[in-house]
């Protein structure tokens, strides 16, 4: 069970966000929600979020723009894009900007869970390496 993985679900469709959040919670994730790009940015800024599940098409700040700002503010936060058929190109563009992966709506939950876990795994590895590097750095400093 992926205990304590903090997931932020961002979509303008509230019922969708609501249901997905509950399902992810049932699977042991800690789920936060936001209904537009700006709210998502605020959540990412304030709370420790591991993985963001981000819809590409949203009124206001769209998915790609939100992704860019998340990556700017919190480069370690992994983002999985959600997209329809018509916006696959946008999702790929998102991956170029640093998104971990994308999923086509309607999503298969097992897929989504797998991807969230993998994304989280990458984030953990990343953090681990940074931590290790810091330790090495500290040790080297001491030696010096």
């Amino acid at each position, binding site marked *: 069970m992926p205990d304590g993985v903090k997931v932020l679900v961002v979509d303008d*469709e509230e*019922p*969708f966000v609501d*249901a*997905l959040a*509950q*399902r992810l919670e*049932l*699977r042991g994730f800690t789920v936060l929600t936001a209904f537009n790009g700006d709210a998502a940015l605020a959540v990412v800024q304030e709370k420790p979020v591991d993985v963001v599940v981000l819809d590409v*098409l*949203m*009124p*206001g700040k*769209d998915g790609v723009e939100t992704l860019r700002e998340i990556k700017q503010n919190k480069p370690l936060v992994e983002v999985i894009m*959600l997209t*329809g*058929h*018509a*916006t696959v190109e946008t999702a790929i563009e998102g991956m170029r900007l640093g998104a971990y992966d994308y999923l086509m*709506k*309607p*999503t298969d*939950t097992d897929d989504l869970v797998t991807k969230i876990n993998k994304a989280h795994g990458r984030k953990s590895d990343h953090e681990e390496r940074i931590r290790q590097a810091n330790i090495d750095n500290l040790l080297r400093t001491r030696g010096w």
Partner: protein
Amino acid sequence: MRNLIGRYLNFKEEEERLSPAWYKRFRRKMTILVLVITLVPLFLMATINYYLYQSALKTEIVTPLKAMINKTKHSFELFLAERASAVSFIASAYTFEDLADQNTLSRIFLVMKSNFSGFIDLGLIDWTGRQVSYAGPYSLEDKRYADQAWFQEVQIQGKYISDVFMGYRKFPHFVIAVQHTEPTGHFWVLRTTIDTATFNNLIASMGLDASTDAFILNREGIFQTTSKFYGQVLDRCPLEAPPVSLEPNALETKDNQGQRVLLAYTDSLTPPFRLVLVKQHSEVLKSWIAFRSEIFLVFTASVIVIWLVVFTLISVMVRRIEESDQERELAYHEMEYSNKLASIGRLAAGVAHEINNPLAIINEKAGLMKDLMNMGGGVLDTNRFQALTDAILNSVERCRAITHRLLGFARRMDVTIEAIDVNSLLAEVFSFLEKDAQHRNLVVTMDLAQGLPSILSDRGQLQQVFLNILNNAFDAVRDGGQVTIQSRAPDQEFVQVSIMDNGVGMSEETLRHIFEPFFSTKKGYGTGLGLSITYGIIKKLGGKVEAESQLGKGTTFRVLLPQKRQEGGA
């Protein structure tokens, strides 16, 4: 000129251009026009040629005839003057006594005869009218002439030349008489007779062809020489006598047999006679008739050839035009169709996305229900399930609304005229693009007039028109831009729909071309057909469309749609 021909050919009637009657009329008018243009000059030329040639031919024929009779007249006058002079000379050179002597007279006569042809006899007549002496083949001594008209005349004129007559001698001849007055006051007359055979010689010397007749008439119209066709010497000439003319004259007339003849004549005063030349008209005009039939033949042949060529050419040309018109129409329809498909494709993409969202919701809600059943340990929270199924049904309803709209659009590919509420049509069209507008944060204002009269038109085509214009407006504005959809009824006849945006706008140059096919400013993805097809549809529906634009400020499209169905629309 161009306008004139254009008006004649009715190039303006574009609308009914594709009807067979139009092409028929066009072909007929074209044929008439070309035939008139080609045949009138041809006809004029032929006519002018005809008359010019006729007059030239006439001159050519008449001039030598005139010259000939003039020459012959002079020969006659000379002939008569010579002989009169000879007699005058004798009368002057000899005395009455010399001439009264029979021997002397005979000798003089012999000399005369040897020098001048035609003399038959010579006689001396004293003042009492008695023939004193005579030399010649007849015995005319002592014959009395006192009471004869010529004897009176010679006393007055001093000289007398008679008409031709038979007289005692029983053959045609004429008389020359010269009076001589003695100083004593007595007078005598010298009289000679000349055979008219000499006249015939003179006429023969004209060298006439068989169909031409020449003769001499006296003042009374009596033949002085034998005519080939009209009578013997001393017969009356059956031809109508033209007025006296001392100059040679020619005229066309009919002879007593009703034949058309060319008559050339000239009159002489002393002695008074008329020289006449008659040429058969048919003979005169032989070359003329040949020319006329040639010209007629050439003209007829030309007309036939021109007619055939013109008819064939114009038939081919009109058929080509007809074919190319049909091809154009077909291509236009195909373009219209592909444009419709393109806009449907675009629509479909949008709709797919719209449907995706409720589907995603259903997916998650149903998934959650399954999760709850699997993981809830057999305890079912009915209220929670109720809420979830409601949410699913809600989403299904959303999907149904979308598919319904799409069906409403797709079903109307064929033209059907029905009463349409423009406001609801605009709302329906906008609903297709609503999501797009939302995603791009466009401010779309629906400024719809209340109580707008419904119009009779084709729903599908109007949907296409407004979808097209709205799409353009959406393309023109930046994210967050404004688009206003306005409906009004400016008068009893039209409903006006304006679609305004505050987008990039167009230059005047661009504005001038927007309704032309294949003109596009959307590099890469525009077909350049949207507005030209929009224009075509509105035109067909009897409406009008105009665009106003300012670079950087925005564009307004104004569509006027007739409330009633327009006649002549397709």
